[in-house]
């Protein structure tokens, strides 16, 4: 890398809003040929939006992107690629039925006299694989290829179009350590060939091992860019967090009661292992960690959506059946899933149907559902939750995200649960409704509810939880008490920047 050279790419003051949410607000990025550049930031810091702007998926609202001295034309992924930007996604989407050679050249197959030249294509692809130092047969089909190998095919594709900027979006998340090593050598190889590689990863050790420079983003803006040799892990974490834990999340102190849930040595092959914790009446236990660290999988296993392989779960001292959500519900557990649109609500149905669905047994007589009772339940909960609606007969798909989430909460509160599991309770919800949801949880906890909360938002976890379990790659690295938990500590434990005791 030589900084005396012209930068290959310069993004200045890029801004992009989706509806009311400002995803990018003054993002800067400068890339030089022959460097591997780390792009870091918490979940929701704007990395993905920035990458998608460069990939041609999103158009920025304002700001400038200059590529190779020319204005970068935005509009489509095809256009971005033609200008020399290639993106390697965490899980590439190849064509399983086509050969690797054809996958590399798909849409622009090499041809001779107007007809596809298979021989040239296979030779060319084979050359690219060799150039990357990878053993893959260009003639085989892509079906059955490991994710690591699929990424290699995408990188070969990028090389074949002479991409100058190759963006790798969390490429190592699904790779084994051996595969990560190979990817690193491929990335260094690209750097030698004067490509500019953007490397997005949550694993700081990888960033230090591979990259020359680093850009940190927070709240849609670039916080800073520096040489990796000028910076250390603590500094990066400070830059990523950089804000006070706001008072938006007012967990009221509640009296702790008996142990409601006890999890002993829980494990699921390939997902998580050795999970131990308790949740008491009146307590919120937060599950923090990166996406893919096993947080959601644990709560799904506790609720019985998935089966766990080892360990046991006790509710009020009684063993809970494995792999049965309906038994978990009967025992008094409620579960608010991560994706409310797909898993939490019947979108085209009314507020009252959605709210009453968990208590239908109680409402029905002789197998017939009593619509009037349904409505009563919905109205009661609508008021408690300060739901904004015109009629409980309205379809929930018409409601805002925040109000939809309230309906999901309402339908579970209607069952009078002893333990509530919430996965990403406020994702995609505006700030005002967010604090209402938090207040609501807080109130319920004061009345003796026990809560497990999974969240990717650090301020939420820190603000709401009495205790925080930090997860990393399927293991619990620490359980922190509220007073000991700082953003820096949680991030360090979640990314492996320090080893847990």
């Amino acid at each position: 890398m030589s900084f005396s050279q012209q930068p290959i790419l310069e993004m200045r003051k890029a801004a992009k809003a989706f509806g009311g949410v400002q995803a990018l607000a003054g993002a800067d990025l400068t890339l030089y040929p022959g460097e591997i550049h780390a792009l870091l930031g918490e979940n929701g810091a704007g990395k993905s939006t920035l990458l998608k702007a460069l990939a041609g998926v999103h158009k920025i609202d304002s700001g400038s992107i200059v590529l190779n001295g020319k204005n970068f034309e935005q509009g489509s992924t095809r256009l971005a690629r033609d200008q020399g930007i290639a993106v390697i996604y965490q899980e590439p989407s190849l064509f399983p039925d086509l050969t690797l050679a054809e996958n590399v050249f798909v849409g622009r197959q090499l041809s001779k006299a107007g007809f596809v030249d298979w021989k040239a294509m296979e030779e060319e692809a084979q050359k690219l694989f060799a150039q990357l130092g990878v053993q893959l047969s260009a003639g085989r089909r892509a079906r059955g290829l490991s994710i690591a190998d699929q990424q290699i095919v995408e990188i070969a594709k990028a090389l074949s179009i002479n991409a100058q900027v190759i963006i790798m979006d969390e490429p190592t998340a699904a790779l084994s350590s051996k595969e990560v090593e190979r990817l690193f050598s491929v990335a260094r190889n690209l750097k030698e060939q004067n490509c500019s590689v953007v490397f997005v990863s949550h694993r700081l050790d990888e960033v230090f091992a591979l990259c020359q420079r680093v850009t940190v983003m927070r709240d849609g803006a670039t916080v800073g860019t520096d040489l990796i040799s000028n910076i250390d892990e603590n500094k990066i974490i400070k830059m990523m967090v950089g804000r006070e834990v706001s008072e938006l999340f007012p967990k009221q102190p509640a009296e702790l009661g008996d142990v409601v849930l006890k999890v002993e040595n829980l494990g699921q092959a390939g997902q998580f292992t050795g999970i131990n914790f308790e949740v008491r009446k009146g307590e919120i236990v937060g599950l923090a960690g990166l996406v893919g660290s096993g947080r959601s999988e644990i709560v799904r296993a506790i609720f019985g959506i998935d089966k766990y392989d080892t360990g046991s779960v006790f509710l009020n001292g009684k063993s809970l059946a494995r792999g049965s959500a309906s038994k978990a519900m009967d025992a008094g557990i409620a579960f608010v899933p991560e994706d409310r649109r797909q898993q939490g609500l019947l979108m085209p149905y009314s507020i009252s149907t959605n709210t009453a669905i968990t208590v239908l047994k109680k409402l029905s007589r002789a197998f017939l559902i009593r619509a009037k009772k349904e409505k009563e339940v919905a109205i009661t909960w609508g008021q408690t939750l300060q739901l904004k609606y015109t009629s409980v007969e309205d379809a929930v798909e018409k409601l805002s995200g925040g109000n939809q989430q309230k309906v999901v909460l309402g339908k579970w509160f209607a069952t009078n649960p002893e333990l509530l599991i919430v996965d990403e309770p406020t994702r995609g919800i505006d700030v005002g409704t967010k604090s209402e949801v938090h207040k609501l949880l807080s109130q319920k906890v004061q009345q003796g509810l026990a809560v497990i909360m999974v969240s990717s938002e650090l301020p939420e976890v820190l603000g709401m939880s009495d205790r925080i379990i930090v997860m990393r790659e399927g293991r619990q690295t620490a359980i922190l008490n509220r007073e000991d938990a700082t953003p820096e500590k949680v991030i360090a434990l979640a990314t492996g920047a320090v080893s847990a005791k």
Partner: protein
Amino acid sequence: MKKLSKLIRSRELPVFFALALVYFGTGFANPQFFTVTVVNDIFLGVAIVAVLAVAQTFVLVMRHIDLSVGSVIGFTAFMIGDLSSQGYPLIVVLSAALLIGAAVGAVNGYLVAYLRLPSLVVTLATMYVVRGIFNEVAKGQTIVESDVPEELNWLGLNRFFGVPYLFIIGIILMLVAGFVMYRVRAARDLYAIGSNAAAAELVGIPVNRRVFFAFLATGAISGLAGAVMLARFNSASTNSGLGLELVVIAACVVGGVTIAGGAGTVYGAVIGAILLQEILLAIGALGIPQFWQLAVNGILIIAAIGLDRYLSTRVKSTSIMGNK
């Protein structure tokens, strides 16, 4: 060597073996099966389905389906006879058949590609619509031998070095389509679309246009195939081609063209068609009651899908350091 291993792994080979197995197995039990007449019966009988199966392959590899082909071929067979009996020259009559087929294909293609309606439903609907128009136009009339153009009559009766002309037409179509599907970029795109439609869009393949033209081509060939049908049977009525679309799809599936899209060739489709026809005759030769034929077809389809699933799970997966 490389070519050989490619051949061994091809999806068409097992079907080809089945073909040989049925042939020799039946011949062993009933030596009369080993006569030239039987082979010719197979070839003649398979011509129509072979042509339609080639056309159907275009849409199947895109993970679509065209159920309207049975109605189209019946309708155009009738129209060729009808127009010809009114004195129109053959070239005009055949052009009309082509245009009718292309028009139905264009409607299918437009609804599927641009309005994003599911092809199963769209072509089910056009299957009925075309059959309805056919009934209205025909008003219960039938085409008889005297209405059939002389040239078609001749084609249906004669052979080239012992091979029926109709079968040769099917083989030529298969070879041309086979070459196009392998060596023409736009046709390769059909495989990409069927394999991963979202990714096809992302790499800049004009998906809508490709889907549209593939349906157009399927319709046009099915329309022209009316000539083959008329040449074969020397007659046509409002029942012509009824239910044929399912026989065609069965032939494709048995021949390794998957309903899931992305894989299969026109060669496989034709071999599949021949296998089904061969089994029909084998059942007769073995003295098995004819109604078993349908059941055997059904079992074959399941066997084909089962084999397909087996082959795709058996496919080598790569691990850590990416061995070949």
